[in-house]
């Protein structure tokens, strides 16, 4: 049986598809305008250096153990897998290079970014969201303090500064992990291994990794703050905001990683 009004039905179907697309576009637009707003305010007074420092310690220092551990294991795994692969065409000597290259360019920033995203963008979102539902943000406003300046900008600056530091540390620890496995299990000489690594790495490898790290830091803080501030009333809203923040930060990190990698090649 033919529907009575096929055109109407098609339009209805389109509307059904269109609504979520439109809503996502609106949400994206809101996020972009929020980001631009934050960028603008970063360069406008008032500045809160002490608060930036507090957040830097919170984001960086307390992430160190888990970031270091991850990098260490990643380095060891890379050495093992690299060895397996290169042994097939007798190119075992390339192990230090592949470990160094992969760590500095990719795994260092991406793993660190994802771990800090899981830890910090959720923490930031939860903190700001609960400030919102308990009217602390309203209290800030009536005390003549702009939430964007006081809550968002310092976190963003702190994350942009701290992530590259974390990634540098994770690069070093990762290479140490690779060295350890190569020396004790794959019969490399430690001096040659490190010499090999050092000679092979180019500044651009490291720099591209650190630039990525800064970008990821920016995304982590922005997504956490955005979801926190846009949170709906109630405890449920806070929970949703934290989840959304982690998802948004992780996805945008992977996306930005692709874009930045294409740029650096």
């Amino acid at each position, binding site marked *: 049986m033919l529907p009575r009004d096929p055109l109407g039905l098609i339009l209805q179907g389109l509307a059904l598809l269109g609504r979520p697309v439109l809503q996502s576009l609106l949400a994206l637009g809101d996020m972009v305008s929020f980001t631009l707003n934050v960028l603008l305010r970063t360069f406008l007074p008032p500045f809160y250096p002490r608060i930036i420092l507090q957040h830097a310690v919170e984001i960086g220092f307390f992430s160190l153990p888990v970031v270091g551990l991850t990098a260490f294991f990643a380095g060891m795994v890379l050495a093992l897998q690299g060895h397996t692969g290169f042994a097939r065409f007798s190119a075992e000597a390339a192990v230090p290079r592949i470990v160094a290259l992969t760590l500095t360019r990719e795994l260092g920033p991406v793993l660190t970014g994802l771990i800090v995203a899981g830890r910090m963008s959720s923490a930031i979102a939860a903190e700001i969201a*609960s*400030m919102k539902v*308990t009217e*602390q943000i309203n209290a*800030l*406003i009536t*005390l*003549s303090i702009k939430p964007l300046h006081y809550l968002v900008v310092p976190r963003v600056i702190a994350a942009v500064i701290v992530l590259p530091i974390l990634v540098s540390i994770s690069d070093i620890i990762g290479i140490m992990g690779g060295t350890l496995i190569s020396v004790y299990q794959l019969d490399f000489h430690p001096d040659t291994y490190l010499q090999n690594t050092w000679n092979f790495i180019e500044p651009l490898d490291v720099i591209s990794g650190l630039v990525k790290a800064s970008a990821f830091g920016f995304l982590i803080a922005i997504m956490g703050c955005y979801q926190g501030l846009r949170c709906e009333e109630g405890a449920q809203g806070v929970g949703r905001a934290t989840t959304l923040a982690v998802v948004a930060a992780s996805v945008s990190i992977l996306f930005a990683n692709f874009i930045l990698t294409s740029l650096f090649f």
Partner: protein
Amino acid sequence: MSSTENPILSLKNLHKSFEDHHVLQGIDLELFPQQSLAILGASGSGKSVLLKLILGLMPADKGSLALNGQKFEPTRQKDSRKLYARCGVLFQHSALFDSLPVWHNIAFSLIMNHKLPQHHAKQKAISLLEDVGLDTSCADLFPVALSGGMKKRVGLARALATNPDILFCDEPTTGLDPIMSNTIDHLIHSLAKKHQTTVLSITHNIISLPLLASHVAMLFQGRIIWYDSIDKLHKSKNPIVQQFIQGKQKKSSPASP
């Protein structure tokens, strides 16, 4: 008091809806210097919403406000800044900053806006703590360690820290025991007297009224249905006011308003 004076704050025909829920349906209200006005109304009648409209924390759908006779749009930063510079706000649930100790909460504006050095600010905070009748040992506690009544008093101290001309109190005594309520009412009353502060408070607590207010405005179904000085409240013939005072729900009382 002195209705010949110009009002500090006047609201004209304020409307606010949430989707199809028309919460405020044309509020007209004036607040005069050194007056203490209480807005009385049932739970859910829109008292907090009204305060948020005045403070620019939510946009009004319709209507206008004036601050000292000048037109004023609280959602515009340029205008709201003027109000925030001279007002203190006690929020319904205190809204203390969880991440800061009590003294820093109280001295927040002094440190952030007035650039007072930390130790001066802390001294001032401690003297405010004494003013609101809290032990000075509370200064270094964090808000989680305080009871609801203590939070209210810290919130009051924070609202008073910059010696505001206007004090907004959203239910300063809800959820407190009668003795604590009375203490807080006395506090607001005496502090307002001492600093000649204009007070706009929101309450549904009849017992608080004599201390808290010289004038009362009754909010009902989105409108101010009764406004007069506090002495007239108990003599009012208005059935809704009567109901509210007696705390009774008159089912069939179509008496003339």
